[in-house]
Structure formats: C-alpha cells, structure tokens
C-alpha cells in the first residue's frame, strides 16, 4: 500500500514537472509577446523593423537564423560590429536581465513573427544549456 502511494506521488511529481517544463507553445508565444513589448520594442520597434544605422531589424532577420548565437546575445548582451541583412551595426545591447524561461518565450515569439519562420521550439532547457 505504501509502495503504491509512493508510486502515485512520484508519478504526480513527475507529471507536474513534465507539465511545468513543457509550457505549451501558444502560451510561450503569448508570454513572449508581453516580454517583447516590455523589454525589446523600444529599440527594435513595434514590428521588429529596428532603427536604420542604430538598432538592427528582427523582422526577416538573417541574424536570427543562428539560434544559439541569438540566445547567447539575449542572455549575456551583445556589443561590437555585427552584420544583419547585409547592413553593418556597431552598438551595445545590454543584457536585459531576463530569466531563461523569459528568453525562451520571447525567442518563440520573435522567431514566428514579421517574416521569420522556424520549426524549432525554444525551451527553457535549451536556453539554460547556452553557456558564457
């Protein structure tokens, strides 16, 4: 009897952990939109168009094709010269202090908007695995 109870507890714990980690994609995208509006939109603008010469576009952006590089930039910040869609930028993007789940959410939002397309679902674990 005790064994069964423990088994049940373990199963429920496992299930809730599983549910916690596998946030539905639609929810992640919705949460990501909120993060985008609060933390990103001021520089990258409403439709990810950026500001010519100052802030690179996120819309139709070839930079975002390298997902790990993008996660790295969101986690640790980005500075120095980069090229986006053939145009040169040289500025500073400070780390915004987002946690790994928030970075996964905003990535899922950005990678499915403004002409960007991906099959990949960014998970919190994936963000955690990108190290400095």
């Amino acid at each position, binding site marked *: 009897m005790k064994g069964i109870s423990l088994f049940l507890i373990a199963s429920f714990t496992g299930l809730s952990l599983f549910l916690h980690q596998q946030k539905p994609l639609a929810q992640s995208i919705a949460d990501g939109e909120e993060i985008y509006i*609060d*933390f990103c*939109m*001021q520089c990258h*603008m*409403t439709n990810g168009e950026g*500001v010519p010469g*100052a802030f690179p576009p996120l819309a139709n952006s070839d930079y975002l094709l390298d997902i790990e590089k993008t996660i790295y930039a969101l986690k640790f*910040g980005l*500075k120095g010269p980069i090229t986006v869609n053939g145009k040169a930028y*040289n*500025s*500073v993007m*400070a*780390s*915004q*202090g987002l946690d790994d789940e928030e970075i996964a959410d905003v990535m899922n939002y950005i990678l499915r908007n403004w002409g960007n397309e991906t099959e990949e679902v960014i998970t919190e674990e994936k963000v955690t695995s990108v190290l400095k």
Partner: protein
Amino acid sequence: MKTLQHFFLSISILGVIGCDAQDHGPAISTPKTLDYSYEIVADSIDIPWGLSMLSATDFLVTEKAGTLYHIVDGVKTIVKGLPPVYVRGQGGLLDVAHSPDYNEDGLIYFTTSSPLGEEKGGHTALYSAQLKKDSLINTSLLYKGDFNTKKGQHWGSRIAFDEEGHVFFSIGDRGNREVNPQDITRDGGKIYRLNRDGSIPSDNPFIDNENSRKAIYSYGHRNPQGMITHPETGKIWVHEHGPRGGDEINIIKPGKNYGWPIITYGINYSGTPITDQTKKEGMEQPLYYWLPSIAPSGMAFSTSDIYPKWKGNLFVGSLRFEYLERLELKNNTVVRREKVLDSIGRVRNIEQGPDGYLYLGVEGKGIVKIIPKS
C-alpha cells in the same frame, strides 16, 4: 475590397507617421563648420550611465550592468561594496553625484534599481556613501521605492542638489502608467526631495497629506532621466522621455502635477493615441516638448568661458539620434536647437566638469570631453 481596405489602412498609417515626423519648435540644425573636437578621457565603458566629477581628472562613473568605476587620470578602478543592483530591462546601476560639500562631508549619492523588499522584482533606490580606498563605506539607504515589479521600464533616475541642503531624485512610472504617476500614495512617476541625510523636509508639499509618500515633490511624470539645478535661479530642471513624441522639459515646482498620462504630446509606440488631451486645468505645461522624440538622457548648462558662444545654453544627450543637443533659451523659451557631435553614438549623460569643460557619457565609448578649436 481588400485592396480598398489596404488603401485606407495605408492612408491612416501615413497620417500617423506624418504627424509623428513633424519637427516641433525650432528645427534642429547642424553647424556648417565645427569649432570643436573631442577626446576620450575614459574608454571602454559599455553604458556610462552616471558621471560625478570630483575634479577634472578624478571622477566616478556608473556602468548600467552594475559597476561603479573610480577613474583617476584615465585609469579605471572598480569600486567595491556596492549594495545589490537589480539589472532588469532599462534598470541597473543608474546615476551618481557628489555632495555640494564634498570636501567636508565626502558624501557621494547614487541611484540603482534595487531588489530589496518583499515582493519579486525591483524598484529604484537612492543611497549615500563615502569612498575609502576604492571601497564604499558608511553606505546608507536613503529611499527605496515600492512596490517592486518585474517590469523592465522606467526607473528614472537622476540626482540633483539645491543650495538649501536638499537632494532631489526621480523615479519613472515603472511600466504602470495607469496607476503610478497620478497616485501620490504610490511610488513611481515622481520627483522626490529629501534632506541630504535622507530625512523628509518638514515643508515638503504632501507632508500633511494622509497616506501620501511624504518624499514626493512633484508627480505625473513618465521617465525623467535628466535633472540639473539651474545655475542662476537654483530651480530644478528636469526632462523626461515621452512615449512616441512628447519628451518634455519641465521646471519643477512643489506639489505640481505634470500630467502623465492624462495629458501628453506623444502617442503609443504602436501609433495609437494615449489621450486626445494636451492641456488640462491643474496640470503643468512643459517648458518645451520634443516631436519627434529624441530620447533625452542627461542634462547640463554651460556656464564657463571655455565655449563662449555656448554660455548659458542647455545641453541634452540624445539616445535615439546619437548626438548632443544644444538648446538656446530666451525667457525660458527654446529659440534654437543644434546638433553637437553628430553621430557620436548614444549619448547617455552630459555634465559640466569643475574645469568648465563639457563631458559626455557615450555608450560603447566611455567619457568624451569636448575641446574647442582655438
């Protein structure tokens, strides 16, 4: 039909953009000949947020990510012993300033995004401390805004002193414009006034108002990131970021309401309106507003003889257009605007040093000194 819809949509978008792009006030001009150059006096600082010049060669610089530098003759040392800094969105280590009586009291003041408190997230805090062998000692928390929030926007914050022993500082609306700026029982969207030891002045405007935050000096602000004591009148001048359009310059008067978000000359980033009101009884009109937004940060008057043509002018950094803006004033009206150091980078801060030179904090560069050509 769909084409027709697109047509009307395009027209309305054009209308909004047309409105937004109109330059308000005297158009910004670019000088034909440059009678100044610049040199970098402290390099390799990502976001030099605040600058406090103890002397022409000895100064303190805050870096947003949470580093306080003590820079002597261009050599940077990291100051130890900072209280916790909550790096989140626009928040981090913010302004730094030294007491007007620094030679006697040795006090420096700084603002930071702070995680202190029970709720998750953070709010802006003001500290004083002293510097001993590149460590902070006698660190004292003078004010901490609440309630904490995980929002990344609008922390302010700048620090200024008057000649009557007060310290002023700003906190932005913390991303909650519908609640904070118009409510004097809550922090955020305010200019604050304290005695330099952190106590509340007995003549603060809301001292007798039950439930109010007694440190509040004025309210209805969005995100003030420029503050300077006028060199002649001693009044506190503040500028603040508008939304899209509607950055403002205001002279701060005790107890007054500066209107955000009930009145504004700006619109939402998305192009939708915030309000149709730009004026209202009981709310102050700005001395000047920018349309389009320049994203102002840092504020200084030039009072020295180093730049004779600029004497008495106001200087404001532009994050968005990456220049230093020079404003000529007549009877508190802006009559001329000019770009100084066009395309230098995002100008985060501007100070007049004790040597009379102008010093800028430029993102990705560091501290830049403007040198007149002789």
